[in-house]
């Protein structure tokens, strides 16, 4: 008997490749089957809406228990009279005052929010908590990761509608989506859509007037924070751009490669925007330490050398794409064109 084992046959490698190919094919097949299962029609009697990611979502009409995972969506829900149906809201944890870091005090008092509603949603969503609340509908933004949206949908069978508008008109569309889900609020939604449309039409008409005349369009830089020497802003394809456009400004961020990014302070200094819209807060514990006019003046790079008009805007109005932002359009128009646009009465919504 030979001590040497028989040499492997010449086909060893090809067999291995074959096994690997079969494994990969099997994996793809399993995944494909799962996807196909997801595409099967669901229960009758539900409404199907197409959310802001273009996904068709089947959801029950007039859900009595809803989870809301973004303040901008809460604004819509509240304005449509659906607050009583909210059983959970997204809150940040890891810092003192998880709710206060996502909701401004005026929002928590107006909307009747408290810590008992909190679901940890940052940096990751506590999906078990969402499931335990047994909602019939989850309204989320793109802050919630795609994997966790999939888990809510596939594992817990919860309909998740993503509301993440990229324009101010998209905010009106989101109101319409929520109205589709809640026919009970149809009349309120129609009235809200009309007022939002009116604000947008008014701004559009003013923009047309500006473009037809000899009025110079001011260059605008919108920033909601600074970090590591960079000003953070809204790039192309965002509601922030839409806001500046409708307010009659020429956004310096329009040519950025990404939707949300920081701009080097020296670049802003070189551009010398004529108007700087910057986010502020006097209430939020985190933002107080980072975003007040005095903090901007003392800490934002080259702040004193920026010669344009510096206009402080409540960060919740500046960064949350909701009906409040649209209804604040007259104030933005006045801020950018104080000699042309009449000063609105009262205070911003």
């Amino acid at each position: 008997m030979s001590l040497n084992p028989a040499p492997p046959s010449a086909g060893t490698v090809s067999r291995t490749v074959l096994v690997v190919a079969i494994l990969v094919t099997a994996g793809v097949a399993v995944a494909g089957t799962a996807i196909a299962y997801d595409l099967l029609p669901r229960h009758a009697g539900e409404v199907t809406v197409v959310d802001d990611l273009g996904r068709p979502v089947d959801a029950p009409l007039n859900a009595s228990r809803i989870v809301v995972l973004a303040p901008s969506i809460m604004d819509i829900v509240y304005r449509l009279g659906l607050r009583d149906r909210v059983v959970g809201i997204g809150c940040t944890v890891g810092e003192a005052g998880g709710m206060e870091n996502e909701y401004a005090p005026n929002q928590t008092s107006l909307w009747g929010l408290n810590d008992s509603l909190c679901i940890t949603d940052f940096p990751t969503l506590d999906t078990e908590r969402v499931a335990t609340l047994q909602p019939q509908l989850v309204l989320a933004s793109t802050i919630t990761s795609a994997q966790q949206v999939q888990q809510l949908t596939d594992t817990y069978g919860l309909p998740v509608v993503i509301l993440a508008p990229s324009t101010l008109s998209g905010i009106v569309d989101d109101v319409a989506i929520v109205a589709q889900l809640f026919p009970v609020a149809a009349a309120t939604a129609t009235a809200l859509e009309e007022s939002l449309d009116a604000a947008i039409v008014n701004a559009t008409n003013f923009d047309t007037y500006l473009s037809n005349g000899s009025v110079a369009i001011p260059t605008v830089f919108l920033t909601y924070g600074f970090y590591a020497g960079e000003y953070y802003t809204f790039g192309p394809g965002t509601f922030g751009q839409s806001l500046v456009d409708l307010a009659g400004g020429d956004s310096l961020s329009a040519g950025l490669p990404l939707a949300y990014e920081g701009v080097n302070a020296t670049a802003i200094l070189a551009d010398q925007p004529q108007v700087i819209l910057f986010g502020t807060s006097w209430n939020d514990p985190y933002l107080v330490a980072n975003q007040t006019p005095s903090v901007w003046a003392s800490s934002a790079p080259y702040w004193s050398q920026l010669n344009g008009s510096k206009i402080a805007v409540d960060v919740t109005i500046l960064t949350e794409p909701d009906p409040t932002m649209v209804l604040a359009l007259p104030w933005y128009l006045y801020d950018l064109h104080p000699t042309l646009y009449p000063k609105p009465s009262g205070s911003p919504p």
Partner: protein
Amino acid sequence: MPPPTGPAGSRRRAGPVAALLAVGLVAGIFLSATVGSEWIPFAAVLAILAREVGLGGGFAPCAGLAVAPSQCTVWTEIVWDARMPSILVAVFAGAALALSGGTLQGVFRNPLADPYLLGISSGAAVGAAILLTFQLAVADQATLLPVFAFGGALVPGLVIYAAASGRRRGPESLVLTGVALSALFSAVLATFLFYNPAAGLQLSFWLLGNLQAETWTDAAIVAGVVVAGGTLIALSGRELNVLQLGPAIAESVGVEATRHTRRLILLSTVVTATSVAFTGVIGFVGLVSPHVVRLIVGPDYRKVLPISALFGGVFLLVAWDLALRILPPLALPVGIPTSFVGVPFFLYLLYRRRPVGP
């Protein structure tokens, strides 16, 4: 010359160690089902598991508990449809990383070899980063993320596989190829993060490993590939033992070094890529598990590989439990506890006794 088999004491320990790990793994799977952000009574968890694995409908999860039937249904979904897939992915991914690490250490005869060092994990990270940084197919990201990560992981593995074809390519060259690719992918990743810092948070969670949103489909794919590929790897222990003697001696006893090297690199790449695609990058498991097992049972790869798989499964499962318990209700990236727990444990074993092999 006989291949390395280790001292007799080590050989005798293999059976009990394997049995202990197997029992620990099964117990760990059941115990891990009780860990999560929502508190569910232990008895209810066990009853849910017993009923779902087919031990009979007599198990009433909420019998004697003052909870509504709908709440009981949610508990079943949490335990069976959310926690169990994550647990199984942890077990099989841990096994895959440990098997892959042990195999690559043997193939390259280098104690530092593991999927991370050779760029397989970095390749997966770049694949995921492409999807997240450039916000491609946002509506289908959950489905596409594993696909992109898998594709990225295959790139360095296949490059090393191709490089291994050359007969004059020694293990050192292959390891250095992997190290160079890993460095390249790290630079690409850093560029992506610099390009789009806003994607950094989601990406950083993925880069440190996340088992939070696994599904039964994920678990089935990972388990299928790891069981099939891992079995082929584990059955190659004899060839790996012979390869430790060098390619010339291996050839003289009928083991075709190049052929087996390429085959094992390919299998290791596929099982690692599949795991990393669903878990994100999890460091240390692939490096440490084979070393720990080798310290206990000796250098014989016929024992090291299957026992490493068991050890890796237990290790990642424990790490996942810790990730859920450290800052509840947050689920930490699982790569954090693997390093915090694994490094001290590894150093303790390393300095407690003289290391063996590979």
